């Protein structure tokens, strides 16, 4: 099962959440929200040097007994969080990186839509399709 979430500062509320399968969704939301704190920790730990493209991917935030949580933050402080089952050991690091990159690219396309107001929840079919196809690959 997987969940992706995008949060924007300063309020850090989610712009997009998707999980497959959909039971236990609340637990996912909880995991994701707590991992936002870890993301903030990592950002502040890096200090002012956080402008390199490689630095955008934060890697494994923390493993719990059930899940692995990965983070990615853009230069505009938009945070992407992905939660995968620990049992899913087939996922390699560079696959996660490429998934985050796809998410980031789709997010920038959404931002370029003149009718999208930054801070709105994301209701884009193209974005949904991209996320669905990514989740199909993983699950």
């Amino acid at each position, binding site marked *: 099962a997987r969940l992706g979430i995008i949060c924007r500062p300063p309020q850090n509320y989610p712009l997009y959440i998707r999980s497959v399968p959909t039971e236990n969704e609340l637990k996912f939301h909880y995991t994701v929200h707590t991992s936002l704190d870890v993301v903030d920790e990592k950002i502040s730990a890096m200090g002012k040097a956080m402008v390199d493209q490689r630095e955008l991917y934060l890697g494994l935030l923390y493993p719990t007994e059930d899940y692995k949580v990965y983070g990615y933050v853009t230069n505009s402080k938009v945070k992407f969080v992905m939660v995968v089952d620990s049992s899913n050991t087939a996922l390699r690091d560079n696959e996660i990186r490429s998934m985050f990159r796809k998410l980031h690219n789709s997010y920038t396309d959404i931002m370029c839509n003149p*009718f999208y107001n930054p801070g709105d929840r994301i209701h884009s079919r193209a974005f949904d399709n991209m996320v669905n196809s990514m989740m199909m690959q993983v699950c």
Partner: protein
Amino acid sequence: MSRTPGRKQDSHKISRELFVLTYGALVAQLCKDYEKDEDVNSCLDKMGYGIGIRLIDDFLAHSDVKRCRSYSETADMIAQVAFKMYLGVTPTVSCSSAAGNEFSLILDKNPLVDFVEELPAERASLCYCNLLCGVIRGALEMVHLAAEVTFLQDRLKGDAVTEIGITFLRKAEDKKAKKK
């Protein structure tokens, strides 16, 4: 959009994204200013008209076109030369009336809507690219061809293609040496 060399030494291009985003910002702002779609559409048309009456001279100066002898040559010129020069796309032209004064340009790629996925639900009758209609109408008017230009089909509204219809309203005058 680039200027053809020969006029000035510089032939710098402006980023396409900047242009598309600027147009999007223009439409979004108009949507905030006006509640009704018809008002936004007519505003875009008026702006386009203002651009068209000025753009025609730029077009004639930069393109080496002969005088057009018929409406269908004019429509071809718009599609194959003008659209190519300013937007980088070439719509296909078809004549849709026996009288020979109604044409339609079918665009299968429209750079202005690169980032727009679909119209917002409350703006269902917005003609997003109505500026283009105004530009064509203004340009034609400056060469003494009155025309009505509207969108017949629009991909953003769910149609299969984007189609602009041009209806020439009067016979072209033959006396003056005009080109289009």
